[in-house]
């Protein structure tokens, strides 16, 4: 079966400015995405996400490896592959500020070869769906950042491609607009059978919109799984120990040396130790450390985690090696 997106061992390095040294931004990444999948591409700053997106869009040529879009090799047949792709790039780089909303939509669709009639039919529908009808004759520079982002997504949808790349679609938006864009993305995901790749730092977007997540760090894939699987994996291993007394300096040191722990105090003034347990024996090691100084344990709970914690744990390397093997 032909995958909608297939990436085979792509690598990319850049020359460092003012020196002969090269920086490896992407170090041999492979994955594939099925038709209709909505994938979150995550990673800390400088992890290689934007480089990866640009290689998938044909804006960057990889040093080696191949990118296929609907079976078309984008390096060898770029223009043909572009018929299947549209992209909303990071920041304010998608629209002409001195053109109106409608003029921007018409212009970019026309640049893809659409006729006036084809554009008009879909444009009105999209403007209605994105609540932009009233703003259609306003210049883009007079719109809020959130509105501009909506217009940019609208431009990408008007292209009517199978694959849409969204690079940081909620970056720099206020809470309300962020929520609005998130709802919009959910709606697109539900109603249109598109393959969507969202590169983001915004965990609620990943949790609410994406089915699958690929986490990139230092130019490599460190996790690739369904969002719910990753959540379950970490949920089942995160425990909180509520203690009656404080921890000694020695106990704290021992715990921090062996585990990634979070030590806090609850409203009742009790010490709460939150820790991700990797193996069953880790659980007994913690109990031992506490027992040695007779620190009474009041409760042990399995904690709920949000996706931000899952992401941080993966990026910190807690599960990195285990994950990499399972991909």
């Amino acid at each position, binding site marked *: 079966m032909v995958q909608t997106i297939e990436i085979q061992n792509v690598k990319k390095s850049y020359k460092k400015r003012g020196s002969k040294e090269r920086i490896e931004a992407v170090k041999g990444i492979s994955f594939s995405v099925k038709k209709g999948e909505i994938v979150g591409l995550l990673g800390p700053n400088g992890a290689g996400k934007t480089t990866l997106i640009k290689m998938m869009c044909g804006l960057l040529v990889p040093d080696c490896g191949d990118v296929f879009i609907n079976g078309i090799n984008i390096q060898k047949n770029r223009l043909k592959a572009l018929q299947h792709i549209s992209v909303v*790039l990071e*920041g304010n*780089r*998608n629209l*002409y500020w001195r053109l109106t909303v409608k003029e921007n939509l018409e*212009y970019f669709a026309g640049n*893809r*070869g659409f006729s*006036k009639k084809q554009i008009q039919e879909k444009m009105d529908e999209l403007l209605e769906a994105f609540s932009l009808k009233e703003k259609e004759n306003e210049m883009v520079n007079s719109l809020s950042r959130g509105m501009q982002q909506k217009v940019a997504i609208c431009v990408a949808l008007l292209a009517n491609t199978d694959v849409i790349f969204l690079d940081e679609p909620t970056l720099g938006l206020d809470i309300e607009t962020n929520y609005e864009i998130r709802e919009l993305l959910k709606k697109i995901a539900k109603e249109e059978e598109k393959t969507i790749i969202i590169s983001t730092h915004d965990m609620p977007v990943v949790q609410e919109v994406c089915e699958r997540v690929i986490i990139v760090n230092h130019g490599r894939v460190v996790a690739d799984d369904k969002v719910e699987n990753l959540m379950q994996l970490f949920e089942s291993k995160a425990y909180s120990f509520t203690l009656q007394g404080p921890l000694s300096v020695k106990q704290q040191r021992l715990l921090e040396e062996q585990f990634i722990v979070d030590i806090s105090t609850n409203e009742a003034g009790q010490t709460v130790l939150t820790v991700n347990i990797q193996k069953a024996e880790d659980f007994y090691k913690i109990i031992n450390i506490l027992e040695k100084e007779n620190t009474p344990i009041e409760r042990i709970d399995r904690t709920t985690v949000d996706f931000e914690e899952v992401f941080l744990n993966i990026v910190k390397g807690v599960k990195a090696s285990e994950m990499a093997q399972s991909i």
Partner: protein
Amino acid sequence: MKWLNLFRVNIKRELILLKRYLPNTISMVLTFYFIFLGMFLGIQVVGNPETAEVNVQYAIVNYIFWYMAMSVMNGIGFTVQSEVQLGTLEQIYMSPLGAWRIFLSRIISTTITDGLMIIAMLFVSMWTASTWLNLDIISILPALIFTLISMFGVSFMIAGMAIIYKQIGSFLQVSQFLLLGLTFVPVSLFPLLELAPVMKGVDMVRQVMIHGYALGDFTWMDFTSLIINAIVYFALGIWVYLRCERNAMEKGVLGQH
């Protein structure tokens, strides 16, 4: 058909921007008018009255060609630079019809609008000065079209440089003076100049407008040289541009300042 749609939106964009930046457009129109008028009246007052008419025609034809050559040859390079500054260059590159076709449509649109403004102002200034140039459009048009095609080729070569190096403003300024020199030199003085872009076409238009040549007065060698020049420079321009584009994508500098 897709190309026509692409051309349609680019010419529409050009017209919208001319209207949106109306003060700029008006000042451009007035500049043409005053320059033409200055040439008509100035040369008649200062120059030798016996040769004044020929001198005026020569100066105006050369000025128009210098302006067109400058505007067309630097046009795509400026467009690339401005797209980089606006941050929209990468979106242009997402068109499945190819960025070069978008830039070609843009330069054709600009050439048409500039050309219409120049022709209008030329007639207004001829009427004001009561001096009429020999404007045999049918004889001028073939030479003009092929000259423009070779100019587009050079424009693509310059744009290729712009896509990699971005800061080519100073080069563009120097090239204006180089063009000024070239367009004022008659090919008959240096026959090898026929191999340079634009020169053959400028020379032929000059013959029509100043010496009253008709199409039939040119030899088949003239037309062959003109057409080959246009095809070679246009094809070379596109090839150089596509090579530079690939290079920029390999280096990762496509949308960077």
